[in-house]
């Protein structure tokens, strides 16, 4: 039963992929039109407008906390002895 469900899920994802590949996205009517995206394109709407500062800030917090991940920063080492 569970195997059938996983098969169904796999098929569903494959159909979505085929849908994208067949170009359904080109007929998709976006509810926010390209000419309405000035505000969204403003740098003040970006979570990563300063990548060097953001990567450093994530490192500074992560070196002193147990949690990690789900924030897009990357780097090795620690320097937290």
């Amino acid at each position, binding site marked *: 039963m*569970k*195997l059938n469900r*996983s098969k169904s*899920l*796999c098929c569903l*994802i*494959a159909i*979505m*992929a*085929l849908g*994208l*590949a067949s*170009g359904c*996205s*080109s007929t*998709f*009517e*976006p*509810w*926010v039109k*390209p000419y*309405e*995206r000035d*505000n*969204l394109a*403003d740098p*003040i*709407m*970006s*979570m990563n407008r*300063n*990548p*060097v*500062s953001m990567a*450093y*800030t994530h490192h*500074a*917090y992560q070196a*002193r*906390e*147990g*949690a*990690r*991940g*789900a*924030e*897009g920063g*990357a*780097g*090795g*080492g*620690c*320097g*937290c*002895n």
Partner: protein
Amino acid sequence: MEQEAVVAVIRQKMTSPSGTVRKLLTRLIFACIILGVFAWQALAAVLPQDRSDAMYHSYQGGGMSIDGPSILLRKKIGNHVSVSANYYVDTISGASIDVLATASPYSEERTENSVGVDFLHNKTLMSLNYTTSSENDFEAQSIHFGVSQDFFGDLTTLTLGYAKGNDEVGKTGDESFLELAERQNYQLGITQVITKNMILGVSVENVSDQGYLNNPYRSVRFLDANSARGYRFETEVYPNTRRSNAASVTANYYLPYRASVYGEAKVFSDSWGIDANTYKLGYIHTFGDDWILEVRGRHYQQDKADFYQDLYTRSAEFNFRARDKEMSTFNNLSLGLSVTYEFQFSANNFFKKSTINLDFDHVNYDYDDFRNVLADPSTEFTTVGEEPLYQFSANITRFYVSIFY
């Protein structure tokens, strides 16, 4: 008989819940790869903007002083490729409570180099990054691969990422000490345009570690009546594996004037028993075309690892033991401010614009079960294990200049 046993084990693996979940996950990952490959044919995505950043960073607090430069260069090559390189240095002077309790203040330097390439093909963006980090007692390298695709009229962006890292852990003063660790990260992110003023993002990441995960300099303390202080220290022992999951939701909203608010909520859980959550809130305001001001707050809270204890009753009391304050129950609150001054160059100049930025955050850490062993026993406490709880504050500063071209 032996064949029957093997068949029975295979059947059990096929039908057990864990076997089914494993197969399902395998198929999901495979489907995601297929999705990424097919989505290659679909829409959008652009190369990152050409820019160079030069930053001075500083962390001051809890007896630690860490500062140094970071330089980022990014340039497009043609219309399909963008390359980047980052050079980063930490100059560390350490006299934190962990160091003072069991060792002497020290200083060292960490250098991190990374190179990356982004490739745009039929509006699918793929990125590859390689990073190395080097200290006198620690070497690390990692490689990251990511695929990003916009679809559904560019309203949705799907990002998949995978990273693998290897660490070589040494120990100053012990030439024979060498331990290894490896790490794998799986990342999935979706960004969704909700309205012409609002974006939502969801991100999940699974990280698994294997190998030597201790800090070789950290110790646990245990009661010892024969010691002058009433306790002694011994080396920590961590498990050799760790798996963690983190999920975050972010939202950005553009206000009726040129300003925005953003928020983020994140939950975290790992196989060591650490549960954590993080909340962030920020407001960005502009003054004319040239000035950007940002104020923000961040709160982090975590519960301790299962094997953490501030004070053990005897040596080697448990198989796994830690007194690393990052493994304890604590919270921190930070308040931050950023100021950016932006100026445009003339239209026919090679450089398009430049910014001068100052970011500052003040963080307060409050520990619930990590005690200050440096407290004075004659005035601040009477019994071992009843020292005042530890707390400290830190200032994080970044000053940087960015040039866009």
